């Protein structure tokens, strides 16, 4: 069973130009791993959000750095690791304001982390600023998936 595990890795320059490629990468793997089209679209969104944050915040829009996305698929779950060597941050300090509040403040930001958290079953950071920052996002498969499995259809619950 352990032999089912498969690993994929994509490394691209830290430019928003490459977000489309990153999404296609995730979509191809999600589809291959048996996730539905809607689930796969959400996985691609979460990874897009994580990579956008790396490009815009960790690297402050300097396109000369690199973003790495590692994906591991096994019979239970799909795991995404987004890795950068940028400035890092303290995720416990990142504000999660209600959307109404963001609108009142005319703030366009603050939605990315919320989307990541609602899409994924588990989100972990390992931050060593300037050295290696890792965001690990885990999505359980629907069948075995206890927590947060997103049943688009009633399914075998």
């Amino acid at each position, binding site marked *: 069973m352990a032999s089912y595990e498969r690993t994929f890795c994509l490394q691209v320059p830290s430019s*928003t*130009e490459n*977000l*489309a490629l990153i*999404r296609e990468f995730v979509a191809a793997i999600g589809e291959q791993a048996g996730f539905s*089209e*809607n689930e796969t*679209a*959400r996985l691609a*969104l979460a990874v*897009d*959000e994580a990579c*956008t944050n790396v*490009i*815009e915040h960790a690297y402050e829009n300097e396109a000369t750095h690199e973003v790495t996305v590692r994906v591991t698929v096994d019979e239970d779950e799909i795991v995404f690791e987004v890795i950068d060597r940028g400035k890092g941050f303290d995720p416990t300090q990142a504000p999660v304001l209600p*959307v*109404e509040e*963001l*609108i*009142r403040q*005319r*703030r*366009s*930001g603050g*939605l*990315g982390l*919320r*989307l990541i958290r*609602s*899409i994924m079953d588990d989100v972990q950071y390992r931050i060593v600023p300037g050295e290696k920052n890792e965001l690990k996002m885990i999505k359980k498969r629907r069948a075995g998936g206890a927590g947060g499995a997103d049943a688009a259809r009633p399914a075998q619950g």
Partner: protein
Amino acid sequence: MTRSFSIETKNHGPVRVIAIRGYLDAHTAPQFENVVAEELRAGRCRLVVDCTDLDYISSAGLGVFMTFIDEARQAGGDIKLAAIQPKVYQIFDVLGFPALFDIQPSVEQAVARFDGAAEKD
């Protein structure tokens, strides 16, 4: 490839319809932001964003709606959304957008929801 994004604007009576196509992400959102900002600056505050051909939206795209919705409403208008594909709608839904924005199944329905939109042509 179909990695592109494009915008088309036209009048629908007194309402301005902005059709967005393709992939709206952090790379393409600035284009959309410029167009909406320009409409509002020009005093056109009754906006319908036609999402028929919108294939993808990330928070960068959603942020454009959030940035300008208050300004449009304070000017007596609104930014209404129309014809969102289910795949894209699920993203708006996750964030609670349907409670905050007026989202209609078709451009015609969205246009009709502006007071007096039916008067002129």
